């Protein structure tokens, strides 16, 4: 006699459960596509009217219905990369301090506080920017920069306080916790034996960090930085509050500027015409595409270089 087992599909509960899971698993990616589709659809009038000129035009004039997104694209890219430039050394240094230098207890306390920085709402950073950072920039840092380095176009012009520099500094503070905590995980994943190998060869503490930690973790830290960049590109509220919102491209970091997200936040509520609305949605589409690409790149990179290796 042969034993017969009931096939798993025969259980109604299993069947339902598996379909619920399937639905949930398909739902989120489907949502992503539906957002992209929605953006395309709503931006269609602007896409039809301006074509690629939308991304190269530098005039943004809702009254004349002439829309060019170049200043916003420029502002987004410059403010985000500048933020990354400021945040990366700070974050990598902090991550090294947390994993390599501080005793474990103190490190977890400091690490906790750093992660709490990531929990501060964007609008609160914006308020701090308006009431603390911007006045300081206007009264202290920017005049000093203009006095000493004013001959470089980067630091020329009147000190407004609000502007590209203020936005970049706020963004740097906001992405530093992200980069720090990922870099910290990357450094933690490096086996103790690597550090001991360096120490046993007569490496000093700093040399051990450089040789066994930084060099081995280079790829992961790069991924962390790109994730931080992705966050900076999309950040809206705080940037809108301190960047000055002027649709122009200026070489000077002291000048007001705008970003893709700040244009959207500022103008969406008072969009005057259908074309204006479509142009704003196309800005949203551009932002969606850029942040999607940057984040996808960073995730793939991190996954391949760190998770992929430790899993082996």
């Amino acid at each position, binding site marked *: 006699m042969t034993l017969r087992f009931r096939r798993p599909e025969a259980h109604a509960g299993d069947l339902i459960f598996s379909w619920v899971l399937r639905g949930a698993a398909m739902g989120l990616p489907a949502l992503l596509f539906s957002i992209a589709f929605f953006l395309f659809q709503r931006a269609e009038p602007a896409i039809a009217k301006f074509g690629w000129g939308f991304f190269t035009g530098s005039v943004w004039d809702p009254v004349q219905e002439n829309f060019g997104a170049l200043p916003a694209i420029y502002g987004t890219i410059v403010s985000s990369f500048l933020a990354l430039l400021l945040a990366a050394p700070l974050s990598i240094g902090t991550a090294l301090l947390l994993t390599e230098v501080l*005793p*474990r207890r103190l490190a977890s306390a400091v690490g906790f506080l750093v992660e709490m920085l990531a929990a501060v709402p964007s609008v609160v950073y914006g308020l701090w920017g308006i009431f603390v950072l911007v006045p300081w920039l206007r009264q202290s840092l920017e005049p000093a920069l203009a006095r000493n380095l004013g001959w470089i176009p980067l630091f020329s012009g009147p000190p407004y306080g609000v502007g590209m520099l203020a936005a970049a500094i706020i963004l740097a503070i906001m992405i530093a916790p992200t980069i720090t905590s990922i870099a910290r995980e990357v450094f933690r994943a490096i*086996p103790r*034996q*690597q*550090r*001991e*190998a*360096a*120490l*046993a*060869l*007569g*490496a*000093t503490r700093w*040399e051990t960090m450089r*040789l*066994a930690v930084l*060099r*081995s973790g*280079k790829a992961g830290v790069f991924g962390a930085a790109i994730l931080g960049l992705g966050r900076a590109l999309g950040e809206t509220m705080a940037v809108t509050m301190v960047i000055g919102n002027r649709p122009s491209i200026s070489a000077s970091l002291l000048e007001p500027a705008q970003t893709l997200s700040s244009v959207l936040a500022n103008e969406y509520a008072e969009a005057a015409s259908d074309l204006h609305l479509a142009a704003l949605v196309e800005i949203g589409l551009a932002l969606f595409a850029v942040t999607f690409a940057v984040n996808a790149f960073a995730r793939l990179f991190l996954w391949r270089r760190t998770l992929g290796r430790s899993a082996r």
Partner: protein
Amino acid sequence: MTTTSPFLLETRGLSAWFGNAQAVKPTTLGCAANTVTAIIGPSGCGKSTFLRCLNRLHEEVPGARAQGEVFLENGPVYGPGVDPVAVRRKIGMVFQKPNPFPALSILENTVVGLRLAGVRRKNVLRELAERSLRLAALWDEVKDKLDQPGMSLSGGQQQRLCIARALAVEPRVLLMDEPTSALDPVSTARIEELVTELKKEVTVVIVTHNMQQAARISDRTAFFLLGEVVEFGETSRLFTNPVDPRTERYITGRFG
């Protein structure tokens, strides 16, 4: 205190702790120049910790500390004014698991210690790399692919690369912490052969859980049990005619 002793490396009352747990009880033993000293004993008997005290690596573990005296060529290894970094340049180490630096090539791995010591000239580094790789019996296998990552080698080759890396800075002593426990029998045999060769260049202290290995390659053997040296003497004598009944029980496989 500095006295002249017949030993190249010597410990006097060396003990070690992890927090409040004593891992090594006061231990006094000496290794003559150009000999191989094996340290055997069951897992957790403190033999690795003892070894790691010799190049002051033990103290790098949070909460760990060591007490007592260690002398290298009659100079103190512990004490105020002794820089552990300088000690570790003279006392090299090879670990249980091969640990070449993943971001570095075979050549870079070999000379990384020299670089740390300040050697910069390319041709000098290259020459010393060849010398160390030959000493580690790896040269013929890697001479055509020095620029490939150290991780691309097999486990046994990686371990010999680590030996070359340790030898490049011309240490006086080479500490080996179960260097073959992660390797296959053929690679193990090659490393054992190598250790016997290396005796001409350095003084070797090797921790092993493999008694046959200790018997094959060492001149003297120390048997550790529960953090203390039960017996220390000529390897041939210790394995054939142990004095302490605990040593006899261990080497005949009745515990451990």
